[in-house]
């Protein structure tokens, strides 16, 4: 594109010589205007360069030049004044007023064009600078927007953290808006508390990026109640696959049992966790025993955990190395001893520790993300509670007649349970119902059809011999049958169970009071405790009981003698 040049004239008589020179050049497109129309022309022409061809004499001429120059955009627009004669003062004033150059005739076309080119080059530079600045602003805006999205994702990922957990107090102090330290908390299905305190290599966004896969794995596995070693193994595998070689996660994973008196933990590359007894003394340092997560390939990973039993009133403190690296860049590190001393002087009160650490941070400066976490080892209170389950409103009866062939090839108890589990409310009871039904069925099979004697089971070897003998007899069983009947009659909240065999029957009632064989006694005792209205029929060939479909109170095992050898 040709450079646009605007020639502003004040003389009634245009400078013919100048016009001629400019028109000779094919590199410029020339526009002219009278001084009076200069502002309009600037807007209309959008020139790349302005030539002033008039005699500057009055003060108003300079101020006009000045205001015209100021009206232009930040993009450099060169103003060149062409005077009639050389006058140093006029030239000075013109430059101060906003002119960028000054030409005094006579001058050759060559000089004029050289001047024009020089200024156009500067304009071009200015243009590129402005473009770069705009680009930079655009990238900045985009980065801000992307950070916003990522932060949102982080917040969502971490929003699965267990809230309002009274057992856990934390102090989390990230160095930037993305935390390279990771703190995860979840409860397990049996009421235990899972926690992870970790520290990714580095800090800021690159360090925090591993948060997403780690937290997803952690929460999913905690929800399933997976053991700590398995969770560590899985996270290691994920991070090993995802992270670059030089990045990894130092972490302690810990599970506090629902009872609150035991922690299972896995630790790699972290400062030792501290066990603090009720008297505020440090009773143990839980030293990390492994490499950090994400370094070893899955086949070399060591998932070995440690179980530590805790006294009543114990606490466990975990922290990242940001705590003891504080001030290290300033030559004023806070070391382990200092930190322990702060904690001890604060009597392990988190609020106080927070205040003291905040002071230390102010004095020493902070170099890394910093996290401290205190776990109070008391019963978690998350153990599942019993509820009144809604039951089906239709009555039903299931009758099963099992021949030796059926008995050999199917597991009727498991199959019945699978079927019953489809019914509303039944899944809640299936484990206990399994136990009761399994006892009745195995009684009928072992003693009714197979005529096994429980006495065999009394010795360690006999125990296995019993089951080997059982298998032997079962494979050659040709006659006999077992009948199972399950009936449910709402609104009664129980399932009536009857199991009958075609064996000789036995006077089993005596078993309730006179248990000569412990193992067998245990089986009947389980039925007795799990069900109601137990009765034998058909000379001991059949047993019937009502299995309750409601939660009774916790078993208080006081009404019977222990049946242990």
């Amino acid at each position, binding site marked *: 594109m040709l450079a646009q040049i605007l020639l502003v004239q004040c003389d009634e008589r245009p400078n013919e010589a100048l016009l001629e020179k400019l028109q000779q050049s094919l590199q410029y497109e020339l526009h002219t205007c009278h001084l009076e129309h200069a502002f309009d022309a600037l807007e209309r022409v959008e020139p790349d360069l302005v030539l002033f061809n008039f005699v500057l004499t009055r003060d108003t001429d300079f101020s006009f030049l000045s205001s015209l120059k100021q009206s232009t955009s930040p993009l450099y627009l060169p103003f060149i004044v062409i005077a009639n004669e050389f006058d140093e003062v006029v030239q000075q004033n013109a430059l101060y007023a906003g002119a960028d150059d000054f030409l005094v005739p006579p001058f050759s076309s060559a000089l004029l064009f050289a001047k024009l080119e020089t200024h156009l080059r500067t304009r071009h530079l200015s243009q590129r600078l402005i473009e770069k600045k705009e680009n930079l602003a655009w990238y900045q805006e985009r980065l801000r927007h992307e950070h916003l999205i990522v932060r949102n994702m982080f917040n969502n990922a971490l929003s699965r953290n267990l809230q309002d957990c009274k057992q856990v107090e934390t102090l989390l102090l990230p160095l930037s808006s993305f935390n390279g330290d990771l703190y995860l908390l979840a409860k397990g299905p049996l009421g235990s508390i899972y926690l992870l305190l970790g520290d990714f290599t580095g800090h800021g966004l690159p360090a925090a990026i591993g948060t997403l896969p780690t937290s997803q794995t952690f929460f999913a596995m905690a929800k399933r109640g997976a053991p700590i070693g398995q969770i560590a193994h899985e996270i290691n595998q994920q991070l090993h696959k995802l992270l670059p070689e030089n990045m990894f996660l130092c972490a302690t994973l810990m599970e506090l049992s629902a009872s609150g008196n035991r922690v*299972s933990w896995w630790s790699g590359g972290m400062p030792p966790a501290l066990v603090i007894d009720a008297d505020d003394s440090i009773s143990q340092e839980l030293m990390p025993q492994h490499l950090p997560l994400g370094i070893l390939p899955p086949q070399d990973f060591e998932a*070995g955990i440690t179980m530590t039993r805790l006294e009543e009133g114990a606490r466990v403190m975990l922290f990242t190395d940001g705590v003891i690296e504080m001030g290290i860049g300033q030559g004023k590190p806070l070391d382990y001893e200092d930190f322990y001393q702060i904690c001890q002087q604060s009597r392990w009160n988190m609020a106080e520790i927070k205040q003291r650490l905040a002071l230390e941070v102010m004095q020493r400066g902070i170099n890394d993300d910093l996290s401290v976490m205190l776990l109070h080892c008391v019963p978690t209170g998350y153990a599942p509670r019993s509820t009144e389950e809604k039951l089906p409103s239709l009555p039903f009866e299931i009758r099963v007649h099992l021949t030796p062939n059926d008995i050999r090839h199917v597991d009727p108890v498991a199959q019945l349970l699978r079927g019953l589990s489809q019914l509303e409310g039944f899944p809640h009871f*299936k484990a206990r119902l399994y136990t009761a039904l399994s006892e009745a069925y195995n009684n009928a099979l072992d003693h009714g059809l197979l005529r096994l004697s429980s006495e065999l089971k009394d010795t*360690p070897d006999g125990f296995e011999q019993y089951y080997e003998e059982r298998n032997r007899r079962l494979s050659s069983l040709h006659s006999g049958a077992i009948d199972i009947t399950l009936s449910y009659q709402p609104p009664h909240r129980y399932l009536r169970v009857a199991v009958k065999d075609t064996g000789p029957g036995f006077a089993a009632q005596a078993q309730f009071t006179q248990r000569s064989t412990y193992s067998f006694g245990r089986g009947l005792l389980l039925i007795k405790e799990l069900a109601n209205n137990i009765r034998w029929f058909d000379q001991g060939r059949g047993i019937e009981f009502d299995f309750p479909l409601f939660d009774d109170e916790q078993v208080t095992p006081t009404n019977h003698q222990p*049946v242990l050898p």
Partner: protein
Amino acid sequence: MSLTTEYANEGKQFIIHVSGRFDFSRVQEFRKSYDGMKESVRQVVIDFRKTEYIDSSGLGMLLNMRKSLGVDGRSYYLINCTASVRKVLDISRFDKLFVID
């Protein structure tokens, strides 16, 4: 794999994870799981977190294990019991022989 084992606490602890059913169908598998257990083990831990069902033969297997591994300098823990497993253990007063939680 429904029955897995691991050593913890530097070989002083032996953990058996039982998943699914814990009844006579597991007799041999269970017995094998602690056959050849290191002498150094002081605590034997059965982790029931994944156990769905237990019956009296399961109880028998626990007693059997205790008898065969011995109680001299060894203690036995039954941990992470679901409510149903816990109930069965309570009924038979296993708390007298095992540490249950």
